[in-house]
């Protein structure tokens, strides 16, 4: 379904974004007497984007009319079986990881994230909780040592510091 309407959807979203930027750029202070001020590029870029999005919508409309989901494609899609739940879970775990990164500190938050993310990726039958936990701790330790002591990068200590 997405492939049929992708032109219209993407065109529509881009149109909204372009409009948003165009309207936001009306408020930009132009700066001292310049014919090409700070609002020039935003306006030009968003206007061009607006035009592109309209073209895309038209292209999308004509494409959706002649689009015939042939049998080959249906088979192909079924074979690929995209697991969007996995994507959502990964997104959420990344989000959570970033939330606790500073408060819990790099070390603990990384262990938690690695554990969760690896489990998300591992199919149910192959999941080994203890092994994954150990791997998570080891990787976090290695990264910590290499980056903080080796490269002298500063990472949040969180509750351990």
């Amino acid at each position, binding site marked *: 379904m997405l492939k049929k309407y992708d032109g219209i959807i993407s065109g529509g979203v881009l149109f909204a974004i372009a409009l948003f930027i165009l309207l936001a750029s009306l408020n930009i202070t132009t700066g001292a007497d310049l014919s090409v001020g700070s609002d020039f590029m935003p306006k030009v870029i968003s206007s061009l984007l607006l035009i592109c999005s309209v073209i895309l919508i038209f292209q999308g409309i004509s494409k959706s009319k002649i689009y015939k989901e042939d049998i080959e494609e249906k088979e192909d899609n079924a074979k690929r079986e995209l697991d969007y739940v996995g994507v959502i879970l990964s997104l959420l775990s990344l989000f959570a990881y970033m939330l606790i990164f500073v408060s819990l500190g790099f070390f603990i938050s990384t262990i938690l994230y690695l554990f969760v993310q690896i489990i998300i990726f591992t199919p149910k039958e192959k999941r080994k909780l203890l092994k994954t936990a150990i791997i998570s701790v080891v990787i976090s330790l290695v990264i910590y040592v290499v980056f903080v002591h080796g490269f002298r*990068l500063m990472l949040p200590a969180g509750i351990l510091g």
Partner: protein
Amino acid sequence: MFLEGFLSILNPTCMILIMVGTIVGIVFGSLPGLTSTMAIALSLPLTFTMEPVQGLSLLMGLYIGGISGGLISAILLKIPGTPSSIATTFDGGPMAEKGEAGKALNVGVIYSFIGTIFSIVILITLAPRISIFTVKFGPYEYFAVAIFSLSMVGSLASGNIVKGLASALLGMSFALVGAAPITSALRLTFGNHQLDKGFDMLSVMIGLFAIVEIFEAAERRKKTKTGETSSYTLKGIGVSLKEFKEQFINMIRSALIGLGIGILPGIGGGTSNMIAYSVAQNSSKEPEKFGKGCIDGVVASETANNASIGGALIPLLTLGIPGDTATAMLIGAFMLHGISPGPMLFKTHGVLVYGIFAAMIIASIAMLIFMRLGMKGFVKILSIPRHILLPAIVVMCIVGAYGANNRMFDVWAVLLFGVIGYLLKKVGFSMSPFILGFILENIVETNLVRGVQYSSGSITPFITSPIAIIFFVLTVISILTVAYKEMKTNKTKLEVIKVI
């Protein structure tokens, strides 16, 4: 003088520094969260106590290793180690998926070496003469070059030129966020001062590649097909004579592109690899094979990005103007030792300059040797199960993103661009125009504003400068070529449908 310079680095300390620098550079280059610029920045304080020639030799090793190392993760993980290897993922990644990781790595390393040596030779022989020419590049010319680079997006976008343009414009829009060039007016920040500096290029790159990889791996998580890695045994040089002959024109052309873009201050390997790739695709007799795993793509990208190294040093050494971000750090190194790079450098510190050239040659050879030695180890990395490898890489990327400015904002930006990249891919947009737009927006706008300021409001110089005209014409040619090709493929598609 060359002999003196060469002899100045032929002591054990210097040689060890070059080797260590190259190895560390390769490591930094191969880790997606770290870049060669960062490696140089972090090592600057270390060079304080060293002799100038030693310190600069170390930094040269870091620079060359850093740019070359990017191809490792680009090929093995489809995540560019540095912005200079973005285009290497386009064909290097598919090659690895087909089980040709070793070959891709080898090709990348060899042509990285060739690109570096080529640019070093030009640097040594022609630097002062080239600088006379590049001084003539003013804002009008830069504007034209940037617009020309943007027109390359037409070919980077698979198929639909409007989608490519839209993707590039979207990338440019994100680059608008923050303080405007020259006037410093805050744009699109909505009062959030974290946005004043705008988005970091590193966040964009990590988000668009590493995070999108995580999402795409999550899509396929039900299928645990471990990547087939045919254990790759090194046969001779790694590239057959036949292949070398086939790639010869590609090699020369990409090296020249890399050199040219490197010479222009402000644009470097990050841009040249994509432009060389798209030019190679456009000039090829079989453009469809690009993106599916052909060595042409890897050759173009890696030759160009390494050629930009020598190119970037030309303005640095002759005019004191950095050719790219890494050379900007190198200026700091020079100043640390009380040397100011510029027109007089060859006269006042001639031996040092030739010492640097010699160090670069040694570093290139070191890069070739070490990367070849490590080849088996690199390919072995692919045998680590992806469901462990990818999250670990993502953590390293996030560490790198956080470490750049020590704030969570850059990390959140990574997630933002990851989501954007994923959605863009879903609706059939390609990400390379986006990145190119993001990188080039600043150059386009700065030079536009400067140019208009110089000419007190008139835009005539933009169209009358001869160099600018050349690039504008090239822009038109490239857009027309892409549009023509697209029309042809659409026509053949229609004819095929009619036949059926």
